[in-house]
């Protein structure tokens, strides 16, 4: 009996991990491919779960998860606005973070994008790195901004009631921006003074890296016959850093892609105006940033857990009779229906976003086809961290095959995240507590 190993690119990478010479080749390859096709990621978080009405209330058609599984699923009433994107999205059920079951339920938004064991935190740790920041780490050299971190409320909130879903490599929260005008100014209008300062800083760093290169070269000559493979690795890495700095400096001079911004209304804020106007403008900004390749990684927290912040009042503004947190606790028929109607509102916003991504085009297909959009919550219904509502859209050019409602009972959300990373051509071994990629799912190249 023979077991002919099927080898894919990753097996090769793993096998090669100890072989230094092959790595630059692979990185070069990765860069080349990535420059042809921007691979992007956008995480959208909604707090407090979705409406999954009790059977006794007789509202099956208002369940956020579609009634049927597989290819034949039908959109429920609260996801109806997403129907035009049927072939561009999938519903994934049954996923969860195993650590979520053990943690205080209010932590579900803190850990949604990180999978950190917040019930038993490592001494000294706050959280762990979020998926969008892993993506940013690998895409930042191709675009102007490593990532864009947005939220309904500015800042970071606080542990267990976080105001951001993005955490850096050290697990520290990354402050989110919530004001459309400020976001626009930062992304599309670098002012002269800050550009000059930025350039000076980059040049300064390049100069220091040059000095290090010089000292390494001098050392290399002193070493005589010594085995220089390790130093070669060092010099290669240094070269890579230098080229990244030079690339960053180039962005300063490179004119932005010419775009139509006339549809934006930058006076809208989360406090003033209608919630729909606010979300539409934020989503338009993300779509524009993707289109101009300003960033390839976005995290957007649509609303916050447990009645925190302004988003709790949005259902009231929309004519529903309870706040967001209270709706999520509703067990009665009226309450669950109203909660589902709020889901409907959110579906409209997401549908608007997907539509925008479909309008913009890269060299190879639409922006939607080159982007993975993850939309979900850290609870299925309030405080229940299992069967997390999860929708994955876009990425048809990245190997995603859509148009299904799949159940992955008790599968790890981190396995989905690893699959997303792999689809984005990021050769991660694991993410948080992942045990592997998500099998029998919508990913064909992981």
């Amino acid at each position, binding site marked *: 009996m023979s077991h002919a190993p099927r080898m894919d690119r990753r097996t090769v990478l793993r096998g090669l991990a100890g072989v230094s010479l092959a790595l630059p080749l692979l990185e070069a390859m990765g860069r080349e491919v990535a420059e042809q096709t921007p691979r992007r990621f956008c995480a959208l978080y909604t707090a407090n779960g979705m409406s999954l009405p009790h059977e006794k209330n007789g509202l099956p058609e208002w369940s956020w998860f579609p009634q049927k599984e597989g290819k034949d699923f039908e959109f429920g009433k609260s996801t109806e606005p997403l129907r035009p994107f049927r072939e561009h999205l999938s519903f994934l059920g049954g996923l969860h973070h195993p650590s979520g079951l053990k*943690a205080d339920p209010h*932590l579900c938004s803190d850990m949604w994008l990180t999978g950190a064991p917040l019930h038993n935190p490592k001494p000294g740790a*706050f959280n762990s790195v979020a998926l969008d920041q892993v993506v940013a780490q690998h895409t930042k050299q191709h675009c102007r901004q490593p990532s864009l971190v947005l939220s309904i409320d500015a800042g970071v909130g606080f542990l267990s009631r976080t105001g951001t879903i993005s955490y850096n490599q050290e697990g520290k929260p990354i402050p989110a921006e919530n004001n459309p005008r400020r976001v626009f100014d930062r992304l599309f209008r670098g002012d002269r003074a800050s550009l000059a300062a930025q350039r000076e800083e980059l040049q300064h760093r390049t100069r220091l890296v040059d000095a290090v290169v010089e000292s390494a070269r001098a050392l290399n000559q002193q070493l005589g016959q010594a085995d220089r493979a390790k130093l070669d690795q060092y010099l290669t890495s240094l070269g890579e850093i230098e080229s990244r700095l030079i690339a960053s400096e180039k962005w300063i001079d490179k004119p932005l892609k010419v775009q139509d911004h006339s549809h934006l209304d930058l006076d809208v804020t989360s406090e003033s105006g209608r919630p729909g106007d606010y979300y539409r403008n934020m989503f338009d900004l993300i779509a524009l940033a993707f289109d101009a390749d300003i960033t390839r990684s976005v995290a957007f927290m649509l609303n916050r857990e447990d009645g925190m912040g302004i988003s709790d009042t949005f259902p009231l503004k929309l004519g529903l009779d309870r706040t967001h947190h209270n709706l999520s606790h509703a067990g009665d028929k009226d309450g669950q229906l109203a909660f589902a109607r709020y889901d409907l509102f959110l579906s409209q916003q997401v549908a608007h976003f997907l539509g925008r991504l479909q309008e913009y085009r890269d060299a190879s297909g639409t922006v939607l086809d080159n982007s993975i959009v993850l939309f979900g919550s850290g609870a299925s219904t309030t405080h229940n961290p299992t069967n997390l509502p999860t929708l994955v859209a876009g990425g048809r050019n990245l190997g995603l095959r859509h148009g299904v409602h799949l159940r992955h009972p008790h599968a790890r959300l981190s396995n989905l995240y690893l699959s997303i990373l792999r689809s984005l051509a990021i050769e991660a071994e694991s993410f948080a507590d992942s045990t592997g990629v998500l099998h029998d799912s919508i990913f064909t190249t992981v």
Partner: protein
Amino acid sequence: MLVSCRLLRIRPLATMLVAARCCGHGIVLLLLAVTTGHWARGAELPADDADSTAATAALDADFRREVQPLLAKYCVRCHGPDEMSSGVRVDQLTGTAEERHLNLWKGIQRQVDAGAMPPDDEAQPTAAERKRLAAWIGRALDVARQRPRPNHGTIRRLTVAQYRNTLRDLLGLLEDFTEGLPPDAPSKDGFTGDAETLTLSPLILEAYFDIAERALDAAMVDEARPPAIQSFRMELGSGINPEPCPDQLILGANSELLPNADFVVTEPVLDKPFAFEPRRMRTAYEFIEGYQGNDTVRGWRKYDSIYHSVFACIRGTPGYPKGQAVAVVPQGMLLRPAIPSEEVFGQSNTYGPMANFKISLRELPVQGNFRVRVRAASYDDALLLDAGSAPQRPASGQVVANLSDSAENNVTIGEAGIYQIDVERQPGEPTGQLSLKLGDRQVASTLPEQKGATTSDEAQATAFALTRLPAGDLEVAARMGNEGHPRRLIFTRVTEDSEAGRRFRAFEERRPWLGVYLGLRRDCGSTLARVGAAQPVARRELTEYVFEGAIRDFPSPDVEPDNVNYLAGIREIGVRSEYTDGRDRPRLWIRSIEFEGPFYETWPPISHRRIFFDSPSRGESDEYAREVIRRFATRAFRRPITPAEEESLVGVFRGSRVKQRNFQASVKDALLVVLTSPAFLFQIEASTGPQAEDVAPHELASKLAYFLWNTAPDERLLELAARNELHAQLDAQTARLMRDPRFGQFVDEFASQWLSLEKLDVVAIDAARYPRLSRDVRAELRREPAEYLKHLLAQNRPLRELITSDYVVVNEMVADYYELPDRPESGLAFVPLRHGRGDLGGLLSQAGILAGLSDGRESNPVKRGAWLARKIIAEPPDDPPPNVPELKEDAAANLSLRERLELHRNQKGCAQCHAGIDPWGLPFEAYDAAGIFRSGREDDTRSKLPDGTDVADLNALKTYLAGERIDQVAFGFLKHLATYAAGRSLTYRELAVLRGEGLKLRASGYPVQDLVRLVVHSDPFLKK
């Protein structure tokens, strides 16, 4: 597509490389073991280069003629470019016995010898062909073994731990900047310091740049600007605050706060030998979100009191099993040991132990070191007696406090000594909390319900406590519940030697251990990390205990400065009496807790002065800059810098000056280049050619320090290197390094990696099955092997004690876990202790190791066997081949473990390896997945070892290893030590020499320090 194809072709080569590196040398060591005597004589070592070249040429010729055709005929179809069955490919093997192919050759030899390959359904070679193949491989391995290793020096990156320690020692900063560095991958020998596996990537190098920048910013200050220092003190004592905050304070759901009158917060003016600005805490706030009970309350409210910024908080006090968890008395606060939450609730959670005291506050400095000073003492306490203890019989000299009319009374104690206090309750008051005051001392506990109580006058007495009393008048006050009081207290003197007297003396000699924590408050508890090690509190008088840390090493709550939530962004300073195993110990008496940060001993701080040192040319001149840079780079590079290096670095400084950067920033630029240069980041041993050379003096200084301290060499080593005296003083310096406290950094690191202790960190223990293996106990068990090794090294014990000994090295928690008959009285400190047990002693029966080698539910003889073979006797099995089929469940369903293993062993392809693993693992079967001995497993522990020796159980195996096989154990230890010290896998030849050298220590019983010295004197260490 083209690219992938190329990569695919690289794959088999890579696999073999990895395999060659991975499997180590042990397979061949099996061979070596057989030929030990031969090698020990060293008759054929070393072969010279010419011999070796000739032998290789002959080998290659025979390969082409005799071997290659056989491989092509019988093997390549499955193990060639098309199929690569099991990831093995033989078509690329050459006839020169390349080092990287040796393990594959060894594997082929085994498969061919056993007739396992080619498989039955394939064409079979003739017996003669098999013999020819095996003979050639045998010769090839011989040639390879005798081949001298080309010496090209080494260049290896510092491990994360070495880098962290080096940066700390160089800059004089406590802070750990390495959080963002990815952990180093372990080599197949388990060591992270292997030059092969220590790779570098742009990601890591970027992190080095970032760390260098942050570390230098932290080290340097603006000398002219006095520092802003925050300091406050919380004093504790009932009614201590004459002006308590009038508000009812609430800090979230279930908040338990000390009464407002029982603590005072002040911001005393510090006495520092330099000018500074006191940074007073902000007290005026306006919040919109707060809590009332469990509800969020919205509405703007203004606050202006320090008591809305600093809280005295306790959590988890109700339900303490014996006595009160926390008591506030006029003299201060009394804390009983903080029982870990999982011991109480059966699961871990973030609420923390019961009870824990915390100062919760809104503001701490953002960076720098801090100090927490705690004025504490061991309380002159009473030992509470367990329910059901017998009251003393009436005796002469009993002193009775009659309290039938009043809660207070005075008595006269005739003779100083230990007294038992028994209580007679009022009729109709069968239970309740009894609070007792004896002079100015306090003790309280809930009295057990009294059976058959009692309306009669003849109330029964209940035994309550033992305490030591001085002679003379004693004020006695006693309360039952809220309002009542008992009828009588009876004081009966017990002699020092009575059972009660002995118990009390043991109790009063125990020390509470003071632990200080820092972190953040969360709604569901806290995230806290310990500041330094817990300290034993021995004295009865208040004494100051100091804890120091770097504030950024602790979790902080990260809220925006304009946060408007009353509960958000709260920091916490936790203070506890540490729990060990639940034994009674005097309470920890805390009078005050003081915080100071950033903490500077001097201004400018030492980290700054180390860079900008005193010099006649001190100022902003280029000359001084040159001195600063030269001195810093010399220390950072661990050797004198070359004139070219100096010019280059000074050039960086000048370049920055030209760009209008100020003096200090320009110096920093040059130092940043130093900290990111390969001379800092790597351990470098330069080489002039492939022949062996002595390591240079400065290279030796670094090698010695990174080996025995896991950090950079100190000034003494560098000085000796500069004078070229280090080689001559090698033994004296080795001895000095082993006596230094930094030697512990080596033992911890080495023990952890050698023995794979990290496995205990990741194994998911089935908490329902092994409730005693809690998180806290695991942390102590994980320390046991290193503490044991430290003891062996410090005392230079014979190596056999690695395997078997009549003592263990334990603290109170570990001793409790093993349920030792004699309990140590050492608190958290590890001490040697005779175990008097048949199932303990030596590494092999340490629970932390055994639990790590389980799956958390069941013991695992395969893991334990492989561990023993690999780590202890250095006869490692091959890695399982890729794509190993799992044993079919149905086939194994009704079989015992032994039978299942046999089934597995009998499968083709598995047999070869498992025959070298399972027999070593079976004797461990008497130890469960939590590492605890269970009797009645005699049938499971019998084993026939690979060399045919029968052992009945682990003790027999230990006896065998510590006796007949002690040479092999010594070799295993030496091999791991030398591999760790050299930072690379050793060649067959080097290992053979090492084995021979090791045998010279046999007569003296292999003292462990001598084994370390042997490694320091070995060629892999001294030659490059």
